């Protein structure tokens, strides 16, 4: 096992643990914190793959903005542990666990075997640099980029319209 693989396994294992925590914790705040940890560790996985820009955007947008809003809403509503968990019967849990492991097995079978021979990222050094991403975004993908921005604008206008009738 190379050091690259070791670092990857550590990061990926932590991210996977945090992802399990999102589902397993009954308290919504702890779930949200697990999701924060998951996003944060994923950013480090991106860093190790040479995608600096993607990683920092992951921290900036997901960890720093979206999850803060999640926590804000959870705290604003002051949600406790839900009672719904008690209603789930034994066989439902068993089926859910079986299906979950089945899905995991299918995905893992497709991913692990073909990728296990690679020990280090194969992309160029500046593959994920801001310059490279900017070049690609504003030349090859300029139309999708602009249309996405219009979509976001529509979303903003719509939410303002819903929230405040008299502007």
């Amino acid at each position, binding site marked *: 096992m190379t050091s690259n693989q070791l670092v990857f396994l550590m990061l990926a294992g932590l991210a996977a643990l945090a992802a399990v925590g999102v589902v397993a914790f009954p308290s919504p705040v702890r779930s949200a914190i697990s999701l924060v940890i998951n996003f944060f560790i994923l950013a480090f996985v991106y860093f190790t793959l040479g995608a600096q820009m993607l990683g920092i*955007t992951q921290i900036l947008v997901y960890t*720093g903005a979206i999850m803060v809003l999640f926590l*804000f809403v959870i705290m604003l509503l002051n949600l406790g542990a839900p009672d719904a968990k008690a209603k789930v019967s034994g066989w439902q849990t068993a089926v859910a666990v079986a299906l979950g492991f089945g899905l995991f097995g299918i995905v893992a079978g497709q991913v692990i075997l073909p990728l296990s021979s690679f020990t280090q990222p194969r992309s160029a050094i500046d593959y994920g640099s801001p310059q490279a991403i900017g070049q690609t975004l504003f030349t090859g993908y300029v139309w999708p980029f602009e249309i996405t921005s219009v979509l976001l604008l529509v979303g903003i206008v719509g939410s303002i319209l819903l929230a405040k009738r008299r502007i």
Partner: protein
Amino acid sequence: MTPRELYTSPRGGEKSWVGNAFLFRNVEGQVRRRGGSQRVQSRGRMEFLQSLHPAVLALIRVLLLVLPLLMLVPGLIWWERRLLSWMQDRIGPNRTGTITLKSGKRIGTFGLLQPIADGVKLFFKEDITPKSVDRVIYFIAPGLALFPAFALGGTLPWGPPTGLWGLLTPVANIDIGILYVLAISSLGVYGVVLAGYASNNKYSLIGGLRSSAQLISYELAMGVSLACVVMATGSLRMTDMVFEQQKALWGVVPWIQNWFIFTPFGFVSFVIFLICMIAETNRAPFDLPEAENEIIAGYHTEYSSMKFAVFFMGEYASMFVFGGIISTVFLGGYNLMPINWAILAQDLPAAAGLFNFLDQANYTLAPLGFLLKCVMGISFYIWLRATLPRLRYDQLMALGWKVLLPCAVANFIVVAIWIMATSLYGVLGGLIAGGIAFLICGVLYLNVMAATRGQRSSLEKRTLVLTDGIGTDQRNQVELVETR
């Protein structure tokens, strides 16, 4: 052994850098200039550092950032208390460590030992953990508040990029330097929010909520104001930003450095960033999360002893580092004065010796200059705290969303048009286009402000129709008139 060999030997590193540099200059009989291939250095030290494993060198860089920060925090607390008292016409803490002799003579330390006394007191206080707290989150929250404050400085160049300082600063000279700063500073909210939640106290919760709302609101304007500087630099790298600021002022005056605060767009960005930075660190006049007259102590109401001290430390460390960030981005980084000494020496040969000496001093004492700027930043924080009353919550939101964000976006558009026009029509065309864009944005902004102000003075009417289901004629119409 020639002098040169003496100083290239590993032992030579013991000498001071100034001494080495001057000796080299004499030996080689020429004066090296900024922008030249290589700076005159204490070779021994550099060779030793270069021979280290990169990981060890990185560790040294981290320690050089974190340890001074840790050691400076008590000094900063002393400085805040003393400066605040002077501004309020008090004396402030000056008794600790004072020895009174039999003759009545006092030997004092200006209260410099006060932070140590405070630290000892905090350390030995009873550590109370309330019964109803969410224990895990309650214990990790102070750590989460401290982490971003220390990680924030990771991309700050506190010394020139060449020679010895280049090896020691910044911790990581990455492509995404300024984005890293934004990302880590946005993590600062977690400590506060989770502390507020975990305390299981309504005042703590309100403090945490206020903090998260405040940070989300001010982060946007902060990001956009930094984006202007990024566009002007053409890079996200912090060292590139400092390098850009060492060029000629407005592209015309070569002796003076083009610090971004001297340019019109940079000045607007600077003011916006300054306000957002204060809001981001939860300091007066934006300290609503810990407003003591409304919500006791806000998010750290339930924290005592060392856990409270950790929050305190995080706040001061992040203030200090933000002072460093604003110095790097707008105030020329580690350059103490906005003057290109080397070029001045070339153009004014009569005083070349003096200017070259100052150039060398500017290089050698760069970290000290940077430290001075950080301290100036923190002094500004204290000055504001002594001057301004706390904002009301609606004023806070109005300032963030209605003033800072539109100004920042307008500035962004003006800079974009200026850069585009400069590349298309040359310098003059760029200036004219930028000026026109500035005027249009200003007129638009004033119009929008006037429109909303006119609306605010009118009464907002809402009609609420209550039907009890019997018939349409039995409606009760309640008209609510809200006055603002």
